[in-house]
């Protein structure tokens, strides 16, 4: 079992996403994260899927994904040198100014942004690799984290390798 990241360019049409998710659910495979948004060409969407399975299953799934009528092209990112990023929005409750300062300090160390502050809460935005995000969350362990919103992974291959029509 191994973590796989697949990039898809897919027709930006109603129902296209359900074809993709249906392939996974029909085989009882879980999608760990899925991000999708239109590309600069609005008739196309770009999708990043993260799943954990064997290489053998991944190869079969790639073929099945490619077979879908709406899938234009596909790249298995885990086979390439690549960069992946995820954004997390983290809301922390504080009671004392010392607590607030501590959260601010940690946010600075991790190069995060403070995007909202109220008299009792502070919300931080941090975009990074999964490991670093986890480390940041861990560093906040003594604080009262109210909520974490994860964007899911977006990925891109290094160098000239690119996903295009």
């Amino acid at each position, binding site marked *: 079992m191994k973590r796989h990241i697949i990039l898809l360019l*897919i*027709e930006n049409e*109603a*129902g296209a996403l*359900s*074809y993709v998710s*249906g392939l996974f659910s*029909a085989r009882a495979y879980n999608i760990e994260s899925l991000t999708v948004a239109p590309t600069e060409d609005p008739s196309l969407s770009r999708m990043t899927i993260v799943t954990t399975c064997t290489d053998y299953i991944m*190869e*079969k799934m790639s*073929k*099945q994904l*490619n*077979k879908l*009528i*709406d*899938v*234009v092209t596909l790249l298995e990112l885990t086979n390439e040198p690549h960069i992946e990023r995820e954004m997390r929005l983290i809301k922390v409750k504080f009671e004392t100014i010392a607590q607030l300062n501590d959260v601010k300090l940690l946010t600075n160390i991790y190069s995060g942004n403070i995007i909202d502050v109220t008299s009792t809460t502070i919300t931080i935005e941090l975009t990074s690799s999964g490991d670093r995000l986890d480390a940041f969350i861990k560093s906040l362990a003594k604080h009262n984290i109210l909520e974490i919103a994860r964007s899911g992974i977006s990925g891109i291959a290094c160098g000239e390798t690119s996903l295009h*029509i």
Partner: protein
Amino acid sequence: MKLSGAEILIRCLKDEGVEYLFGYPGGAVLNIYDALYQQDDIKHIMVRHEQAATHAADGYARATGKPGIVLVTSGPGVTNAITGIATAYMDSIPMVVITGQVSSAMIGSDAFQEVDAIGITRSCVKHNFLINDLFKLAETIKKAFHIAITGRPGPVVIDVPKDITNPDIKISYHYPDTIKIRSYRPVVNGHPAQIKLAVQMLLNANRPMIYTGGGVILGNASEELRKFVYGLGYPITSTLMGLGAFPASNDQFLGMLGMHGNYEANMAMHECDVLIAIGARFDDRVTGELIYFCPYAKIIHVDIDPSSISKNVTVDVPIVGDVSVVLKEMNQALDVSVARPDINMLKEWWITIDGWRSQKCMSYDKRGDSIKPQAVIELLHHITVGDAYVTSDVGQHQMWAAQYYGFDKPNRWINSGGLGTMGFGLPAAMGVQLAYPDETVVCVTGEGSIQMCIQELSTCLQYGLPIKVITLNNHYLGMVRQWQEFFYGNRYSHSYMESLPDFVKLTESYGHVGMHITDPLDLKPMMERAFAMKNRLVFMDIVTEQTENVYPMISNGKGHNEMHMSPHCELSQAWEGR
């Protein structure tokens, strides 16, 4: 000229050259039915259940190679059609299914006869479309036909909300001649280097084997296949779906392979050193237990669907492409090749195969007072000179028809191989008979299967379809009974058919001819009489030996060389655990 959505829909079908539309009316498709009423180009066949509409369209497609077209209403119309759509999907049959939908504004409101047709059919179609813009209707229909018939064929559903077909909203009509879909470009030509490699491997083989499937029939590649097989002089076997692509009467044909395949075909698969699979998908009923599959063979696989390659069995030389084109390329490569197969090795291989063949695995006990189902099929071959279109349902009768009829031509054997749909045979035969009104069309069925779509006898009367129905009636769901005998200690749980109808009276009440045949001596004269009635549907209720089993048989978990043989063939092996 401006047309309404309903008129556009019918006009598109006409421009696609559609001859028959199999359907059933209902609220959401009334506009379309009104447009149908006002034209004579497309003949609508009204079935008695939407499942039958899909099977009839499917049978038409399998026999003609043209797509089958279905029109059903929303809600239950769609859900009833699902079995037939899934049947076509599993066997890669080109079909366009138009489903009515409630008006766009009502979708999602739990409206009367509303189901999410797009969601419910998603996993059993090649693709589906929900029409949300009248201006896209014609183009979408073109896309649907293009997707259904190209590449690996399959059913495509077009869901049409009622407001789209509103007779009062008319727009100008244009049907595109061709269409390009950027995300859908099936590969047609095989990779030249792979073809060269495959040809080399085949010519260097000591014990070669050719294994073909339904793709050869779907790809219209029968002629190229014959040239290929005759040219090489190699043995060939076929899956259930591929029967007829190569003539069964030819000596190079070893019969069907797989769970109920011929001894010589399965043994040759097990012992071969180079296997070429053409338009076949290594189905579990074909391969037996995968770890024992072709243990000595290098495998070449020709298929139009890249996802079929190395799906179940890892292959050495994959060739993605249209089987007809690839076979043609291979035949050309063979024509110019100076290398030839090693005649001595091939001769030895044939001697081994003839040894297996001499076991006569298809022999059965012909004695006794009851009619043997195998004898019925052999007689059917005799009476129809092996030239009938034969549809079947699912079970023992299906296997016997496949084993004993001996198909020499493609598109003649029409059955639900992948999904295994009981109830398929009679409606499929309707589609075939409509396509070929002058040909003999036979539905080989059982007393279990026929009752799943027996209402279609009424459709057959309405359209004057002189189908010959052969019911091998053993009062059991025979294949279930056989498995219960072999694997469940003779506990025949719910496989006995009690309270059967009087099929003769039933058939007569539908306006057809019924025959009840019990005596082996009556079989030939009565069948001859039935087939002499060219213009009548004749239902032959043939009471057969109750406990006859289908042999050979490979049980679950066994390899091709571990068949359970008929007790009546020369080689009767002890059956493990029996």
